[in-house]
């Protein structure tokens, strides 16, 4: 094949996969990278807003008996902070990394179900906008991100504040469930030939484990939030103990989701750590199999721990012991991964201390503390002291910021060149790291002590006689350092974006397939599917073999078999469409309407139905293409996409 042929093919593929121009085109985007970048920017904005809320709370707590912020606003602030950080930042931002990277890493041209993917983003965006607008209108949630009933129930939370919270859950969980399905299908069916199960990148494994957790955990909280809103709106009695309901039912439903939620946030971050460690030690992570099994074990075990959030509710002792044991058990797979990474450091090549690795090392220092305090709160006996105190605030931030945010920021520094074609400043990166690392510890380490000294969570003020003022001032000081570090990050991103695209395809000399294409990648990611023969393909062959023969005039994607990634058939992927956007608007109308009237479920279904009908309305041409490539032929005839036609 001549290079001219290749160039023609490239041009054709690029034309086929190009998005539509114009502002309408912007609303029709189905490319996973564009959607992922939108997710990233949106979640980052939500992160900034929730961070400002945290800063406001820290200012209020800086002094004893401070009256900067009253209880009404404070309660909304911490409820928003928790809900936004969990539902609108931590989960979606890591899913966004998955949406961006999983197809690239498995060598696919797009994520599975791209229109659904676009739909998930719009639903997520509208849900996020809804809650922030509600907050701006004084309808922000006020019963915490956990919304315990009866406080969040109809009697004790009048008005619509909690209903908006419940619908926020519905919005975000809907989008999270959609993304999980896409990631699972992408990782299982769209892997490039040769990428057998044993060659799947660790980040993809982490995303798959996470996606399965989402599939099993999120329905519990969606059920819970639906129960809550129906208790509030139509007067059901799910949580009314007088009429046979139970306030603890909410806690069970919530934490059956809420505990896996922590791992949903933290497992993908482990995947990031593995990728960065491998890249900067110049070797594949030691112990691929144990690490993968640990990820899967974490995903499974995470469903057996939820009761450790309820140790002080007076549950039977046998139950408490079971959940203590289970909670301790989950430390084992995490420990194994940490040991494997240390072994990787110990046996890898010479370390290149770039910012991404700096954040990963910071992850070790912080996350291990969070893990160890996790062991402490897993003890039912000790938890009776730690529960709902600032000790837990410290613990959870050590786990979530240490365990997820540090790797995430590292990952941003690591993949920024791929996403934008530009490098972030190393110098600013170091500044940011040290500000963040020190600020973080100054903010949150004292909280362990405050918790032991009796400072409880979610208090908007404390008395001078409590003796908590000094450490609280320290924590506020630390919070300002964190804020400064975030400013440095923003400045770094902005200034980098103004520079030229000089990063090149593989600035870190990393082994993954995402580095085998240009930065940023072309609309189809790869002109031709690559063929993989190793866990570290680019280190083995910097220019892997490609699959040819895929039709170029249609959005053809090679579908492979789950276990051995042998090509199976060609799937025709959908083109840009406005219907996901319109359907998302219809769903938004239904969800927001049902805050005010149950009839919204009835009349709101009409626009949703219209949206879906438009979305799935078949055209003759499409049907013909699909039939040609996707309908399984009768056994006797050879399938059209047999390897015979593909030259590897």
């Amino acid at each position, binding site marked *: 094949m001549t290079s001219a042929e290749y160039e023609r093919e490239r041009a054709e593929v690029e034309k086929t996969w190009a998005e539509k121009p114009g502002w309408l085109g912007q609303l029709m985007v189905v490319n996973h990278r564009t959607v992922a970048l939108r997710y990233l920017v949106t979640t980052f904005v939500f992160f900034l807003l929730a961070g400002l809320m945290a800063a406001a709370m820290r200012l209020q707590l800086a002094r004893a008996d401070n009256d900067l912020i009253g*209880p009404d606003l404070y309660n909304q602030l911490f409820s928003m902070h928790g809900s936004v950080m969990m539902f609108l930042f931590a989960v979606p931002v890591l899913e966004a990394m998955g949406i961006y990277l999983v197809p690239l890493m498995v060598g696919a041209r797009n994520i599975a179900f791209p229109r659904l993917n676009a739909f998930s983003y719009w639903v997520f965006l509208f849900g996020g906008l809804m809650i922030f607008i509600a907050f701006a209108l004084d309808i922000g949630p006020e019963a915490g991100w956990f919304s315990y009933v009866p406080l969040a129930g109809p009697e004790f939370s009048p008005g619509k504040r909690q209903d908006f919270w419940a619908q926020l859950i519905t919005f975000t969980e809907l989008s999270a469930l959609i993304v999980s399905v896409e990631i699972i299908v992408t990782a299982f069916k769209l892997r490039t030939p040769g990428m057998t199960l044993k060659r799947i990148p660790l980040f993809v494994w982490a995303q798959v484990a996470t996606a399965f957790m989402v599939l099993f955990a999120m329905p519990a909280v969606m059920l819970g939030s639906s129960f809550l809103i129906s208790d509030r709106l139509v007067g059901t009695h799910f949580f009314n103990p007088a009429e046979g309901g139970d306030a603890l039912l909410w806690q069970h439903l919530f934490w059956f989701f809420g505990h896996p939620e922590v791992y949903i946030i933290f497992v993908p971050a482990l995947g990031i750590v593995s990728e960065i460690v491998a890249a900067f030690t110049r070797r594949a992570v030691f112990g691929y199999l144990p690490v993968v099994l640990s990820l899967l074990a974490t995903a499974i075990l995470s469903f057996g721990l939820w009761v450790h959030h309820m140790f002080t509710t007076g549950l039977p002792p046998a139950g408490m012991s079971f959940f203590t044991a289970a909670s301790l058990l989950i430390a084992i797979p995490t420990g194994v991964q940490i040991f494997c990474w240390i072994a990787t*450091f110990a046996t890898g090549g010479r370390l290149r201390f770039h910012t991404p690795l700096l954040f990963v090392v910071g992850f070790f220092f912080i996350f291990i503390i969070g893990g160890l305090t996790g062991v402490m709160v897993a003890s039912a006996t000790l938890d009776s002291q730690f529960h709902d105190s600032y000790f837990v605030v410290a613990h959870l931030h050590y786990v979530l910021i240490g365990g997820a945010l540090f790797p995430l920021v590292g990952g941003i520094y690591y993949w920024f060149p791929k996403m934008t074609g530009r490098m972030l400043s190393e110098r600013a990166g170091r500044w940011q790291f040290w500000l963040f690392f020190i600020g973080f510890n100054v903010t949150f380490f004292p909280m362990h002590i405050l918790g032991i000294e*009796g400072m409880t969570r979610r208090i908007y003020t404390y008395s001078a006689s409590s003796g908590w003022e000094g450490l609280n001032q320290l924590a506020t000081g630390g919070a300002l350092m964190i804020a400064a570090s975030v400013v440095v990050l923003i400045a770094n991103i902005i200034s980098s974006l103004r520079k030229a695209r000089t990063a090149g395809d593989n600035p870190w000399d990393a082994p993954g397939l995402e580095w085998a294409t240009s930065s940023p990648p072309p609309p189809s990611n790869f002109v031709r599917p690559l063929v993989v023969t190793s866990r570290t393909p680019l280190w083995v062959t910097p220019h892997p073999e490609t699959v040819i023969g895929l039709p170029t005039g249609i959005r053809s994607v090679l579908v492979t078999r789950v276990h051995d990634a042998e090509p199976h058939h060609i799937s025709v992927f959908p083109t840009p469409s406005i219907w996901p956007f319109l359907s998302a608007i219809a769903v938004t109308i239904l969800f927001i309407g049902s805050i005010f009237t149950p009839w919204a479920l009835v009349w709101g279904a009409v626009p949703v139905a219209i949206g879906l009908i438009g979305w799935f309305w078949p055209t003759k041409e499409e049907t013909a293409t699909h039939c040609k490539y996707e309908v399984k032929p009768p056994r006797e005839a050879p399938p059209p996409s047999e390897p015979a036609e593909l030259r590897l």
Partner: protein
Amino acid sequence: MHSALQPVGPRAELIADLMLLFFAVSAVVYVIVIAFLVWAIMRARERAVQLGPAATAQADRKSKVAVGVGAALTVLTLAGLAASDFIVGAILRQPPADPLRVLVTGHQFWWEIEYDDPVPGNRLRTANELHIPVGRPVQLIFTSRDVIHSFWIPSAMGKMDLIPGRTTNEIIQVSQPGTFTGQCAEFCGFQHSKMRLTLHARPAEEFDAWRQRQLAPAREPQTQEARRGQQVFMQSSCILCHSVQGTAAAATVAPDLTHIASRRTIAAGSLPNTPSALASWVLDPQRIKPGSRMPASRLPPDDLSALVAYLTSLQ
């Protein structure tokens, strides 16, 4: 200052000891893991750019052993910690002999406390201050009238939730006299922050004397002003929510004030119990505790001072 690590009773001591054990083990684990990490990083910084496949394979064999040992040690450590937790938990769960039974009911945003007694006429009701005899185990029986609260006195006991529609219970035992503070630990609304309580532990005789005094109906006001204050109390909104034993005031949706003057704090530990604090609390509670259930009363100054005189006479 009160801390879970400054226990004042045998049960809290056990928890504190367990906590110290966990801290110590955690510290050792942390130091070891970080030491290995730093060692590995330092080693890797000085190494050649990339190891050859043979060297990697050899190192991997060592790593396998190391990771295996690490995992095994993790399992052992966790098993040890779990066992210590189970043992301490089992000890704490043993039912004490002859406990004093106290019913604690959570309200937004105060604690109702009632001492159980086989003779109903000796059941004492009070609020926000838990008095107990030193040395004797006290069984606290919890429930809530509205939302979920959680009872916590760090230096004396762990938390226990107060859940509407359920009863929970926990034992508290204090071995030294003193006053210890605590507060609601489960978010319960606007004034979760100022839903505080104090524990007063005192020798058994003193406790019995206190209990007898508290059982008596309120003292009749002695001074002219206090008498007028009583009138103000009975003719204003106070009587719709509060009770003073021995008078017509017997409402129960707010703390019992029969012996309000004997308490150290008011408004669930938000203010010291001084005449001026009392006056400002009565006048505008929403400034002090916004969102609390106590409404502002627009009493003229002389009525207010008479009322305060009456309340401070309720020893």
